């Protein structure tokens, strides 16, 4: 129970951010109107995804420095959780776009970057499933994970800033910046970021432990 405090924190933060996100007061902005509440759901999911995928790359780097089965499992499970969060982020963004832009999807640099990032990690899963030998799979997928992350960073964080984008926060559209994210919104936004990230950690933790148990059972059967 003593190690469970962060799980309690996750639940509290998520309930707080969902309730306050839906009921709290938000500034009235043209075009955005009530959809500005998506800031409490969509943006924290992408933040959480970035943090979780970064953790995955860190695990891959650690694996290459000092190979171990556990590190490989962690890298794999964090990548999977990252994909779940990315899909959630795409879905919430798509619903939001339907009500503010009038379309589910447009060809926008930021949207394309997000879609390609999801493709990269899909390719990571395909690569893992196509190598049989365990050690070889661990090493090769670690190499691809680092390579793909380095290729995805310009896609997500640099390229969209260089061009005009419809997405809030770029090209003069209202969004995540100092003058329109007022302090009431920060009070809900930051807890939401921490909450979604911790939820990702939690999911990863459960699935990684499940994998370890499976490995143990398998070893027992062999013995």
């Amino acid at each position: 129970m003593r190690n469970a405090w962060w799980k309690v924190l996750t639940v509290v933060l998520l309930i707080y951010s969902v309730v306050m996100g839906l009921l709290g007061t938000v500034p009235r902005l043209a075009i955005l109107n009530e959809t500005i509440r998506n800031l409490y759901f969509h943006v924290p999911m992408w933040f959480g995804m970035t943090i979780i995928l970064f953790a995955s790359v860190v695990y891959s780097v650690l694996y290459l420095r000092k190979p171990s089965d556990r590190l490989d499992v962690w890298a794999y499970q964090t990548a999977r959780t990252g994909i779940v969060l990315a899909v959630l982020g795409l879905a919430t963004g798509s619903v939001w776009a339907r009500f503010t832009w009038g379309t589910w999807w447009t060809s926008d640099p930021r949207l394309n970057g997000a879609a390609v990032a999801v493709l990269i990690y899909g390719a990571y899963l395909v690569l893992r499933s196509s190598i049989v030998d365990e050690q070889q799979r661990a090493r090769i997928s670690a190499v691809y994970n680092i390579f793909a992350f380095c290729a995805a960073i310009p896609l997500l964080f640099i390229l969209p800033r260089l061009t005009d984008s419809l997405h809030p926060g770029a090209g003069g559209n209202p969004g995540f910046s100092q003058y329109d994210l007022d302090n009431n919104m920060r009070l809900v936004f930051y807890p939401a970021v921490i909450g979604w990230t911790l939820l990702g950690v939690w999911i990863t933790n459960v699935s990684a432990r499940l994998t370890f148990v499976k490995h143990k059972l398998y070893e027992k059967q062999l013995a």
Partner: protein
Amino acid sequence: MQLLREIWYLMQKDFRLEWRQRSALNGMLLYVGSTVYVCYLSFVRGGQLPAPAWNALLWIILLFTAINGVAKSFLQESRGRLLYYYTLARPEAVILAKIAYNTLLLLGLGLVAFGAYALILGNPVQDVPRFTLVVALGAVGFATSLTLISGIAAKAANSNTLMPVLGFPVVIPILLQLIKAAKNALDGLDASPQPLYMLMGLSLLVVAVSYLLYPFLWRT
């Protein structure tokens, strides 16, 4: 210095191999030629393609040529031969030599493809020198980003399907910049070099990452 010498010898070896069994090289040239001609048959037939479509089609041809050209760079190496290299040269030299060789190969193929394409489908490019420069940078970008991918794919079971699957997401940032730069050169209007700098930056980044990561890959 030692590293440069090793790269030089490995590149020479690759060129010599390519020249001795010309079937692969001829195959790639024929591939370029027939794709361009298929595009001609299916799209043009009396009338110039609109410029954006012309541009997109050219880059699709170049992308698939690059993937086919680079894919064989590690697949053609037998296990024994790779082991032999590792006794002679360091892994950094192997990957850098492959990147350099693929760059030159794609440079040649890309220029041939552009020439054939412009000849058969008409040439709407306003600023030809700049467009050629973009094609050359494209060859560099494709070669750098796909070489490590081909090394990874060669290790896996179904490497022929895996190569495009792994390669596409990594190539897309480069491809987006390329199409933008090419469109600028095509219209001959916006001469800002920003996409070109972006391309060089991306290529450098990818080369650096390949250099760091390949030593971990070759041991398997």
